[in-house]
C-alpha cells in the first residue's frame, strides 16, 4: 500500500495556492485589462515569465531570495516569524508565482473581451465599481474564471522543479506527489511510482474534462 500523504499534501498545496492566487489575480487581471499605462508590457512580461523559464531557475532565485542570510528571507523570518524555505508556506508562495500566468491570463482575456459599455452602463445606472464588478463583470466572465482556477490548480499539482529547489523532500511538509514519484523511482520502487503517477494522470484528466464540458455547455447556452 502506498503512502497517501504526498497526494494529500499535493491537493492541500494546490487548493491553498489556487484560492490565494485567485484573490490576488482578480485585481491584477482587471488592472491589466483596463490600464493604459506604458508599463503594461513590462508587467505582462513579468507575469508571463514562469511560462518560459525552467522551474529550476525560478526555484534557484527564490532559494537565494528567501534564504535567511539574505534581505527578504531575513526580514520575513525576523519580523514575521515566517520561514519560507523547506516549508509548506514557502511552497505556497513559490507555487503562486509559478502558476501566476495560468490564473492571470484567462481572467485578463475575459475582462478584455467584455464590451466597455457594460461597465459604463452600470455606472450610468448609479452603480459603484464594486457592485459593477460583482454583479456585472464577474458573472459574465465565469468561463474565464473557471479556466484560470482549474489551470492554476492543475499546474500546481504538476509542479516539480520549483518544489524540489526550495521545498526539498520533507515528508508531510514538502514531499508532494511529483517528488514522491521521483523518490520512488530512485529507490527502484516502480510499483509505488506507478500508483502515484496513475493517480495524478487520472485526476488531471478528469479535471480538464470537467472544465471543457462546463465551458462548452456555457457557450452553447450563450449562443442558443
Amino acid at each position, binding site marked *: 500500500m502506498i503512502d497517501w500523504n504526498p497526494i494529500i499534501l499535493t491537493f492541500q498545496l494546490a487548493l491553498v495556492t489556487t484560492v490565494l492566487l485567485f484573490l490576488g489575480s482578480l485585481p491584477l487581471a482587471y488592472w491589466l485589462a483596463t490600464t493604459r499605462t506604458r508599463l503594461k508590457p513590462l508587467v505582462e512580461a513579468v507575469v508571463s515569465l514562469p511560462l518560459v523559464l525552467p522551474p529550476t531557475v525560478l526555484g534557484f532565485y527564490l532559494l537565494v531570495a528567501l534564504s535567511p542570510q539574505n534581505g527578504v528571507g531575513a526580514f520575513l523570518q525576523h519580523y514575521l516569524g515566517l520561514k519560507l524555505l523547506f516549508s509548506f508556506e514557502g511552497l505556497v508562495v513559490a507555487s503562486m508565482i509559478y502558476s501566476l500566468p495560468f490564473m492571470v491570463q484567462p481572467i485578463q482575456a475575459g475582462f478584455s473581451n467584455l*464590451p466597455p*459599455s*457594460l461597465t*459604463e*452602463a*452600470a*455606472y*450610468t*445606472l*448609479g*452603480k*459603484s465599481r464594486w*457592485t459593477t464588478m460583482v*454583479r*456585472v463583470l464577474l*458573472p*459574465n466572465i465565469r468561463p474565464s474564471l473557471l479556466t484560470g482556477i482549474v489551470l492554476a490548480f492543475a499546474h500546481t499539482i504538476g509542479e516539480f522543479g520549483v518544489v524540489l529547489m526550495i521545498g526539498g523532500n520533507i515528508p508531510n511538509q514538502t514531499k508532494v506527489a511529483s517528488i514522491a514519484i521521483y523518490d520512488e523511482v530512485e529507490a527502484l520502487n516502480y510499483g509505488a511510482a506507478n500508483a502515484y503517477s496513475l493517480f495524478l494522470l487520472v485526476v488531471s484528466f478528469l479535471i480538464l474534462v470537467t472544465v471543457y464540458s462546463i465551458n462548452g455547455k456555457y457557450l452553447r447556452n*450563450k*449562443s*442558443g
Partner: protein
Amino acid sequence: MLEIKLHKTLQAAQGPLHLNVDVNIEAGQIVTLYGASGAGKTSILRMLAGLLVPEQGRVVLNGAVWYDAAQKYWRKPQQRSIGYVFQDYALFPNMTVRQNLEFALPARKKTALRWVKNSRKNHRTKMPKDQTQLIDELIEIVALQALQHRKPTTLSGGQKQRVALARALVTQPDVLLLDEPLSALDQGMRLKLQDYLLELHQRFQNTIILVSHEVSEIFKVSDQVLVLADGQITQQGTPSQIFTHRQVSGKFQLVGKVLTIIQEEVVYIVSVLIGNQVIRVVANEDDVLDLQPGDQVMVASKAFNPLIQKI
C-alpha cells in the same frame, strides 16, 4: 435648463478634432444631435454622462453643477441624473430582461444584494411595491411582458433596444441620452420605437438628447435640432427650420401641427397649422387612426407640383 459648455480636443481618424460646444437646452425637450459621423456627437453624449472627461467647460442642470473646469469639479456618472442608451445596447448578458431593469434600481440596505440571488418569487415580495410597479409599467410601455424572463442574447435588435430604453429610465433620470438608438433597426421597428420613445417621454417628462441621422425620425420625435460639423454647432433650431429648405426635389413637404380632425361623410378633413397658415388635408380613416389634435405631422406630396403665382 441644461447648460452645456464643453471643449475637448479629440484624436479622430482624420487628425485632431476640436470639439467646442456651447448650448442651452430647455428642460423636458427632445433634442437631436445631427451631423456626419466623426463630428463629435457621441463624444458630447459621453461627456454629458461623465464617461469622458472634457478639457474645458461647464455643465449645469437646473442649477446643479455636474462639471466645472474652473472649479476643477467633476461629478462621476453615478452622481449624475442620467440614463444612457448605448449603441450596442449594453444589456447585461447574465441577467434576464426584468433583472436588467431591476439592477438599475437604487441599492437599498443589505437586502439589496440578497433578493437578486433568491428565486424570482422571493425577491418580488421583498421589493417595495412602488419599485415593482415602476418596473411593471416600463415593461408594459415597451411591450416586453412576454419576454421579461428571457436573457438578452435571445432577443432581436428591436427588443434589445426596448430593454435598453426601459432600463435607462428605471432611475427616472432628468436627462436621457440616446446614442443612435434606432440606427440598427429596420424601418417598421424604427417607427414603433419612436412611438415608445415619445410615450416614455410623455410619461417621465425628462430631457432627451439623441444622436440621429434620419431626418424623418428627427421630425417625428424632436423639438430642437443641433447640427454638428467638425466639432462645432453650426445650426440650431426646430426640425422644420433646419431641414425644410433642403427638401426641394420636385415634391413639397411641410411640417405642422394638427388642429382639428373632422369627419365628412366617408373621409376626414384634417386641419394642419403650418407656420401661421392653416391647410386642410383630406385623409381616410387609416390615416387619422393615430392622429390627434396637437400631433406633429408632415404634409407631403409627390403627385403634383404646387402652383406658384404672385399676389
